[in-house]
């Protein structure tokens, strides 16, 4: 099936198999391997991207469903030499260890900061329950998200 999708600001026309998941298409056809796959039940959130500005687990969508949509992946969150304030906050607050859940966490956190700009710690923790991390115990992620959201509010 033919689709037209904007990915990280670039319009792409492609023919995709109807069974192809969006995450697979991003990784294997576009080579955007920053979006990770860590489960097969839509539980872990490692594949979170933005679809029309909202965070979506890209394993829950078929590539054909993205027809006409505007997608942003972790690679497109900031310019090639820059860090988005949320990425910067994760760095500053040691909000990542092995890095595997990180792209999904950051994409989810950016949406949170937009949706609830002054989210409390409890709201952050509740929002992030769809993103699993095995390394950090979440504490520094929560700290980073608070700081990143504050940076976005003040920018």
């Amino acid at each position, binding site marked *: 099936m033919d689709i037209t999708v904007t990915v990280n600001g670039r319009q792409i026309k492609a023919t995709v198999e109807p*069974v192809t998941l969006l995450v697979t298409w991003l*990784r294997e056809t576009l*080579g*955007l*391997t*920053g*979006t*990770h*796959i*860590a*489960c*097969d*039940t839509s*539980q*872990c959130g*490692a594949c979170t991207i933005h679809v029309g500005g909202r965070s979506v687990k890209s394993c829950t969508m078929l590539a054909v469903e993205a027809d006409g949509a505007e997608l942003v*992946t*972790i*690679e497109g*969150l*900031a310019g090639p030499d820059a*860090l988005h304030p949320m*990425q910067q906050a*994760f*760095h*500053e607050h*040691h909000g*990542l*260890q*092995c*890095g*595997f*859940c*990180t*792209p999904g966490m*950051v994409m989810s956190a950016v949406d949170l900061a937009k949706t609830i700009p002054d989210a409390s710690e*409890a709201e*952050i*923790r*509740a929002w*992030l*329950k769809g*993103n*699993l*991390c*095995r*390394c*950090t*115990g*979440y*504490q*520094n*992620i*929560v700290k980073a998200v608070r700081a990143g959201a504050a940076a976005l509010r003040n920018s």
Partner: protein
Amino acid sequence: MAQDGIGAAVRRREDRRFLTGRGKYVHDIVLPRQLHAVFLRSPHAHAEIVAIDTAAAAASPDVVAVFTADDVAGLNGVPCAWGIAGKDGRPMKEPKHPLLASGKVRHVGDPVAMIVAESVAAAKNAAERIAIEYRALPAVTEVAEAAKPGAPQLYADVPGNLCCDWAVGDAAATAAAFAKAHHVAKLDLVNTRLVPNAMEPRAALADYEPATGDFTLYTTTQLPHVARVLIGVLMLGIPERKLRVVAPDVGGGFGSKQVVYCEEGLVTWAAGRLGRPVKWVAERSEAFVSDAQGRDHVTHAELALDRDGKFLGLRVSTLANIGGYVSTFGPNIPTNLYGPLLAGVYTTPAIYCEVKVMFTNTVPTDAYRGAGRPEATYVLERLVDVAARDLDLDRVDIRRRNFIPANAFPYQTPVMLHYDTGDHEATLAKALELSRWSGFAERRRAAAARGRLRGIGIVTYIEACGLAPSRIAQQLGARGGLFESANVRVNPSGDVTVFTGAHNHGQGHETVFAQLVGELLGVPSDSVEIVHGDTARSPFGLGTYGSRSAAVGGAAIAKAVGKIIDKGRKIAGHLLEASEQDIEFKEGYFGVAGTDRRKSFAEIAGAAYTPPPSYPLETLEPGLEETAFYDPVNFTFPGGCHVAEVEIDPTTGALEVVSYVAVDDVGTVLNPMIVEGQIHGGVVQGLGQALGENCVYDRANGQLLTGSFMDYCMPRADDLPNIVVATQSTPSRHNPIGVKGCGEVGTIASPATLMNAVVDALAEYGIVHVDMPASPQRLWQAIQTAVPRRAAQ
């Protein structure tokens, strides 16, 4: 101290690639002409394979090859790196672990066939066309059942499913201690089975170059050099010089990736056989039935005490489930890394621990964060609480009475270990203060007024890490050394490249090792690059596990840097026309003692590569590069005190972790930000077990019931409190940099701490023990069972 040297909270240099999606994990690597492998796995826990028909699969579109046990019959099995011996001195039973199940399957997920195709989808479609006739056999998944007469037998030549009947300690002395006891506290407990679940599923991609016979294996391993030996030499017969193992970015390991697996061998072998790269990436549901799992003990423990609550003796009997096959380090975990830890921080004079290591129809178990030490801590610290309850002693008091005093270090325990340093009174005092222990009664009353049961739990613990002194490890069954390597290459312009045998899969080595080298050489840490994870680049090293990277890998780096400084001193002596003995190295300068004549580190490096006329090439080699292999003199012994506070809603059993305090002695802190992050993660991994994680097999048929994140309850952000972390250090005397290790302390202490708090919350119901996990269902049931019992009394 340099601003970015030892002790500075330097932000991690590895972050940027991960934050921008430019990490390079095995799944991200694509080689031209690569094929895709899929494994067909057993749906049965225990069955004979009567017949396999692969013809239809082989004829499926885009299928290149289908392999079964017959195809790999000429290869060796999956090797075990640690062979233990039983109490009678006889070696453990070590049946062959074939790369593909041969004749019989022994757990759900046991691989039976490998399908290689042009795409994953084609391979999966073909897998469905493989016809296997199984004759199902009765299965046994629970370790206590496996030990009973009449239990299903996994191996004809392993009677009673007993892999090894192991023991440590002095049985007679312990019996004598019990004979004179005033009181014996007793406890039966289960340590649940866990699935490590590193977020990155395992993956392997192998390439073969027929013109040279060279293999390259990209794999998700914590120990690339060990993997090269085990996979290349022992599994496949490929000489080390012809196999390069690369472990690029690896998304967490927790022990599950220190195990060497059949899939890694099979993709390598298939790449050679097919002349094309072969890639396999595990799906999560596949990981649940094929990644080595952790824990799974059933234990009876008894503590003998005198009238004053002093521990006289400890007797522990454990059944340990190691699954269907002997895994890479599997036999070592419930034995050497468990029994000797039962001394804890106490002066218990007599200890005896016996462990029956059992085969069952489950995924093999192996090291999982903490590996044996959380199990020991759980037994001991739960039992100490039971003893306190029995004797009506305060839980802090009974621990204090039995502490090894700070001035008694170094201390020889009755079960092998020789502790170097520690101050358990100090970590206890700090934890009591940070947890506001003395104000608990008031908080409990306030909770009761809200209808909540509030409990507080405490654990004082010690662990052994920095694995390991090769000589001791080999006496205990290690089939190799356990040193670590480092190569320090000073480049001609004076910057430094360090090649380490340790592997970074989240611990921050690229940052911390650079801090260490920067400090030792007096250069900025950002002029130091750390290289790891590639057998073609680093010298032979043992990799990362057992909290060893800083204590052993860091010590190796420090040793190599020492050699660099020694040589730099020689070079400087010639350049400065002074005796080598008169050259001092300080803050990045080689100077003549008592003068202002000096050369910078970069000048010395320049001279080593562009020798000036005064450089004595006849007696002093040019260049500035040194390799060191560091074998630790002993283990390191981190320890500390953790306190947890919980509230339980008695009407639902729902539990809230209200607070958690961790005070740990991890020795010298190289980077406090990273140490804190390691402790957060470790504590939560242990709380995962205490709160919800539990790997469950169907008793009737051996099916895995918790095979996905929908059934296996991983800790999530909203389950947890903020953890208060403090370090209270006594530097280790067992390595030159004083570090003890911080990767596992959290996981070792937190399950027991949390469960002690849970039992304390339920104390008014007369409940003395609850097995993990403290799920609402389990707590509610415990309360419901206790209420009528209490009423009857």
